[in-house]
């Protein structure tokens, strides 16, 4: 929707009395300030409560640095894999008709409705010491649960829907006329994909990657179940925040938390920027 049209709607012929309008605005601003802005402000205030030096020390702590590295590594592995999945799923669902398509579409959403703890639990049941594959894995000296592969699987599970969720409706609304034209002119399938499809969906793709990345770096419940919380080894940033907090190292906990909050702010800013570009329809139903 272009801003001009929005402004015209903004001068209503009918409407609530001014007093009602201002009361409602005041209520909503106050509510959002208390519920959204205050927690955010608190994270940064607490992080710097004892000054820059304490903040820097908390971040430079070897365990904190290891958790930051692990979190970055996780995102670097999980985001590209789920990006490939998202593109494949969108291509199959938005470009072809096949039986069971609506079920497949619904299944992609499944990880969003499953409790993160339950998603962690399923991998423990498959790969854990008492799991289906546990004895075999132990016999071959492969460690999945309480090690990087388990954390990776849990993160892949929870971040699976994000790219597909953005691409499927976008590609459905664009239709395949341009791709058919490219093919008709003799382009190969891959060439058509890279030169026609990908440029057309690039903003939606970026949007999905952004959300996927935020969740990959921030996931707590699922990762917590499979990680084993080994300091400096299998601790991601959110898990490190928990450990510090439970040890009453509040300033250090909030220092690491402030990095994650910063990530959230950058994500929101980029997301808003992408929406303003207009190529991506803003405010689709959440999820």
């Amino acid at each position: 929707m272009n801003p001009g049209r929005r402004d015209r709607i903004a001068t209503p012929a009918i409407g609530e009395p001014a007093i009602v309008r201002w009361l409602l605005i005041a209520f909503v601003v106050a509510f959002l300030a208390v519920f959204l802005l205050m927690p955010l402000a608190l994270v940064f205030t607490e992080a710097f409560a004892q000054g820059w030096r304490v903040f820097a020390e908390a971040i430079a702590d070897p365990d904190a640095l290891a958790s930051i590295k692990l979190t970055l590594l996780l995102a670097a592995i999980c985001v590209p894999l789920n990006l490939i999945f998202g593109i494949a799923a969108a291509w199959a669902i938005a470009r072809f008709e096949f039986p069971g398509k609506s079920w497949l579409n619904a299944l992609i959403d499944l990880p969003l409705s499953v409790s993160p703890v339950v998603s962690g639990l399923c991998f423990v049941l498959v790969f854990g010491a008492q799991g289906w594959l546990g004895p075999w894995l132990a016999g071959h000296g492969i460690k999945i649960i309480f090690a990087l592969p388990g954390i990776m699987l849990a993160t892949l599970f929870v971040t699976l829907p994000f790219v597909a969720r953005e691409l499927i409706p976008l590609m459905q609304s664009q239709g395949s006329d341009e791709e058919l034209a490219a093919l008709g002119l003799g382009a190969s399938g891959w060439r058509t994909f890279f030169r026609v499809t990908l440029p057309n969906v690039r903003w939606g793709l970026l949007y999905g990657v952004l959300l996927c990345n935020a969740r990959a770096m921030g996931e707590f419940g699922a990762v917590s179940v499979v990680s084993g919380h080994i300091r400096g080894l299998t601790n991601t940033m959110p898990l490190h925040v928990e450990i510090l907090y439970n040890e009453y190292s509040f300033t250090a906990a909030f220092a690491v938390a402030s990095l994650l909050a910063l990530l959230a702010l950058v994500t929101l800013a980029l997301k808003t920027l992408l929406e303003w570009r207009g190529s991506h329809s803003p405010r689709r139903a959440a999820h």
Partner: protein
Amino acid sequence: MTRRVLPGFGLSLGVTLAWLSLLVLIPLASVFLKAAGLGIAGVWEIWSDPRVASALRLSFFAALIAAAFNAVTGTLVAWVLVRYRFPGRRLLDAIIDLPFALPTAVAGIALTALYAGNGWIGRWLEPLGAKVAYTPVGIVVALVFIGLPFVVRSVQPVLSESDRALEEAAATLGSSRFNAIVRVVLPAIAPAILTGFALAFARAVGEYGSVIFIAGNLPNVSEIAPLLIVIRLEEFDYRGATAIATAMLLLAFAMLLAIHALQAFTARHRRAGQ
């Protein structure tokens, strides 16, 4: 139809199905397989344990209360953001998604610090006798935080597309503004509110990270079901953990079906209305 004219059907569907099966379907099926090994009687026995039952009840009702609260406040927020113009509106609109972007553990410790007895908000509430942190009320507060964007983002697009001519018609026909909102606007956005409510509820039932810090985690009082799964796992009681997880998965499936039915209904209505 474009069927089979475009290349890559086999490859893309193959990748999709393989990835989905390996990562989601087989692991989730293993929960049900494990539960089947316990038998219905075995699962029921674990569910009826008082501590388990009260954890499941708490997760369910806290999520229900938070989602209901969000359905009302979220709709008001959407209304104000869509219909009114005021300074700072765009900033607030952008910040609505904060709970999606902020890692749950960060939200958890921030909310706890806010509502604890010496916190920015807690220090004002405590003298009034309202304890929030380390009580079930704190759980609801965390779930309200987590669920708010679902309702706002469901209602916003429907509200901004809704036809104001209908409201004007109601006004010219002598309807009061309040009447027009209740009779004309509310029915149009009701499915969207319900969808947002269902999404917020589904998310809140299974929520873990933002809740465990503020909850206090007292068995039978403020211990949520996901936490009890974690506790059972730490005790190596895989049967107990699986049985609780089965209850939560069944609820999640039911919610997923409900949400898809609602979204299909809303989409049909929006198309019909245009």
